[in-house]
């Protein structure tokens, strides 16, 4: 910055943040010179993007580095403090009160107009109306938010941010749950706000989209700002290589070595055709062969988890036809799926994968014993040998069996969440983010065991947000974009930049 230039509206310099052993941010920088620009922030999962947004919006306190607004250093202790400085964030999960009206939601928190001792309804309503007009958002202010579409709810959140006189508006993956038309109207709103002088920080992975809207781009990788500049100075290719780094990640050998075993003549373990989940998945089809590991890649909201949950029968009835080992299978709840030899490791191990209050042993035998007579005394040592074998193969200390699961590290918890399915070897194992948030060693152990059970004849469908993981583990990768499979890639012949581009909606 040249001397004498006015101080930039927002500047982050050398911001650092450590969570326990993880250094989420090492050297994050971001500059927004003035209002009225759209600044895209991009980075892979685990690049520290969410932490950076947390620091900006007052949810996380940084350890070192400076955040300054118009040259004055600031340190937000809470989201309210950030709002007071004119920084507002609209998060990925839309947080509106469904039973309050549009006007009430817009004014929620601080915007109500007070008169005498109470809230003035009419004054509040007209204030909300003003904000809605500023957004050119045509909706009845008295309509309960419950009745609105997702994009309209998002607009309500944006309106709420504006009532706080936001000068900097953060939109975290705002398009992940929107249709094409809805994205169009969101972009119109963003442009309108830009013209009104608001600075917008826009997080997105969709290449086409972000080039359409961005003025400036900042790329984050491993907690470090690795590239920043005007949108015109990037191409989709240069952006992807900045996100991934120059050297391709190691550890691809395992995948290619394992792929030797599967051929097109191996019997199909799971066949899915015409799977439709309204609003999430369109016409998903898959032939998963014995011994094969297939990966699902895509952005948040691409419909990957919905595919796994539908096959397992965990989310109501899904349209589509399914076959297990050539026999028809109609998903209807986890019990039927398990009876058909299907296993499912959910993404959230703490809430869905494990009962944390129970012992490791109880969790590991939970699936295997789910159909035992309920009043029969659990025979001591029933399946103990199997449990010990599974624990050993995942390098999980068998002495932990009596320990409360809550006391284990994240890596060991995830091992238990996987192990409970391996006690009864499943014909088809569905894994949703099988190594999210686990340490490197536990990840390697889990990967090794997954390859081993595939080699022994199980068929695996792995959903992961980490492209590296898919390339390490899988024989082929299906890339999804907005509910559709857009590519079916054999692993030795693809790489992370191709997958990332396809996942972002860029045809290759």
């Amino acid at each position, binding site marked *: 910055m040249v001397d004498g230039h006015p101080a930039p509206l927002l500047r982050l310099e050398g911001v650092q943040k450590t969570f326990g052993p993880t250094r989420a941010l090492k050297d994050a920088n971001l500059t927004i010179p003035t209002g009225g620009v759209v600044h895209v922030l991009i980075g892979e999962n685990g690049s520290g993007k969410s932490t950076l947004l947390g620091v900006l919006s007052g949810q996380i306190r940084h350890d070192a580095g400076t955040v300054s607004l118009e040259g004055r250093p600031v340190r937000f202790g809470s989201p309210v403090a950030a709002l007071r400085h004119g920084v507002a964030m609209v998060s990925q999960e839309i947080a509106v009160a469904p039973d309050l009206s549009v006007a009430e939601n817009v004014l929620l928190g601080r915007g109500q107009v007070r008169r005498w001792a109470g809230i003035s309804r009419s004054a509040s309503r007209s204030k909300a109306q003003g904000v809605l007009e500023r957004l050119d958002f045509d909706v009845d202010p008295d309509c309960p938010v419950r009745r609105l579409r997702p994009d309209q709810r998002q607009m309500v959140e944006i309106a709420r941010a504006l009532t706080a006189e936001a000068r900097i508006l953060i939109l975290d993956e705002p398009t992940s749950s929107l249709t094409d038309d809805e994205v169009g109207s969101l972009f119109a709103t963003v442009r309108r706000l830009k013209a009104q002088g608001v600075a917008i920080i826009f997080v997105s992975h969709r290449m086409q989209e972000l080039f359409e809207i961005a003025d400036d781009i900042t790329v984050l990788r491993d907690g470090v700002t690795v590239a920043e500049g005007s949108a015109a100075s990037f191409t989709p290719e240069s952006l992807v290589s900045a996100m991934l780094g120059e050297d391709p990640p190691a550890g691809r050998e395992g995948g290619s070595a394992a792929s030797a075993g599967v051929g097109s003549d191996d019997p199909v373990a799971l066949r899915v055709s015409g799977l439709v989940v309204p609003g999430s998945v369109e016409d998903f089809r898959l032939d998963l062969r014995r011994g094969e590991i297939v990966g699902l890649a895509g952005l948040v909201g691409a419909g990957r988890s919905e595919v796994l949950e539908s096959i*397992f029968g*965990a989310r109501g009835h899904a349209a589509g036809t399914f076959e297990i080992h050539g026999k028809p299978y109609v998903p209807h*709840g*986890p*019990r039927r799926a*398990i009876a058909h030899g299907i296993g*499912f490791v*959910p993404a959230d191990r703490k*809430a*869905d*994968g*494990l*009962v*944390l*209050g*129970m*012992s490791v042993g*109880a969790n590991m035998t*939970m*699936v295997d*014993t*789910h*159909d*035992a*007579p*309920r*009043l*029969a*005394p*659990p025979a001591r040592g029933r399946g103990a040998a199997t449990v010990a074998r599974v624990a050993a193969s995942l390098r999980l200390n068998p*002495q*932990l069996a*009596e*320990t*409360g699961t809550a*006391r284990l590290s994240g890596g060991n918890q995830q091992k238990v969440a996987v192990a*409970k399915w391996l006690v009864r070897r499943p014909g088809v194992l569905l894994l949703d983010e099988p190594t999210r948030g686990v340490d490197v060693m536990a990840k390697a152990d889990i990967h090794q065991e997954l390859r081993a059970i595939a080699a022994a004849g199980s068929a695996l469908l792995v959903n992961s947000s980490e492209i590296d993981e898919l390339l390490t583990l899988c024989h082929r990768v299906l890339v999804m974009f907005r509910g559709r499979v857009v590519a079916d890639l054999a692993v030795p012949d693809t790489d992370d930049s191709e997958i990332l581009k396809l996942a972002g909606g860029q045809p290759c």
Partner: protein
Amino acid sequence: MLNPLIRRAWASTSQFRLVLLLVVAMFAFFALTQPAFSTSTNVQNLVANSSLLWVVAMGMTFVLLSGGFDLSVGATAALTGILMAKSLELGIPGPLVVVLCVAAGALVGGLLNGVAVGKVGLSVFVVTLATMTSLTGVVSLWSGSNSFLVTAPAAKWLATERFLGLPMPIWIMAAVFLVALYVQNRTYFGRDVYAIGGSATAARLSGIHVPRTLIIVYAVAGACAALAGTIGVGRVGAAVPTVDSTLALQAIAAVLLGGTALTGGSGGVGGTALGVLFIAILQNGLSLAGVASDWQNVVTGVILIVAVAGDRIDPRLITRRRSPSSTAVDRATLSASSRGA
């Protein structure tokens, strides 16, 4: 150094240690200050007087472990009393009537509360409140607001018969407790209840039949309430047309005092037994001391808060004190207690 067995037993009390200490301390205090307290007759009366609450609270423990609660048990007990009186009038043999009553209680609990909560997924509070309200009405209508004198030998036998020198309610309490303890710790059903209370989603995804388990849990609570209802009729010698509206809340209080979490998934019937004894000793001791019985409620309320708050502070203090020297085995024992005694 303490014997490992004693240490293990002590560790297993971690969830209801405060109430355990209070029960012992109160017993000692009343024994020293009230000469009439520690006589064999008084202790037997004290325990037998708590039999209704005990039996109801044992069933209630499973409901809380599964993550719910049941407000309707008092109404179920009253309804069973009327059912008992009417069936005995018809000349149905006494033992059969008791079986009939318990089955009716299980049916009411399972079909009304269990199906609505477990299968339909309605709110526990609304469902059990509605059941309580309707059953209270049914009790009044069916009885015509009349009391029924019950003189059948079966009713007397339940309440006043002695076996090996102890009143029958104490034997019933022991039997209910042992069955509950067995089901809780030694069956897959017991494990299912803990799993559902810990995380209903994780239980469901693991193949556990969540609706069926919940229906049985509420049926068990109803059956226990019905059994308590029959004991009550025996003790009073009549079936009365009024619902003891405090029974359900007292039972929930006893379960919570005993260290079972309102959110489900941890605790157990061992703690509940102490919770009931706490209320019983307090009531008995204070009345012997000539203190107005209202103070019993005041003290119970205060201790309930302290016990639940202590639940948040206690484990950290205890593990911190032990942690420098604690071994893997120690930690394993401590956590094994998370399934309760």
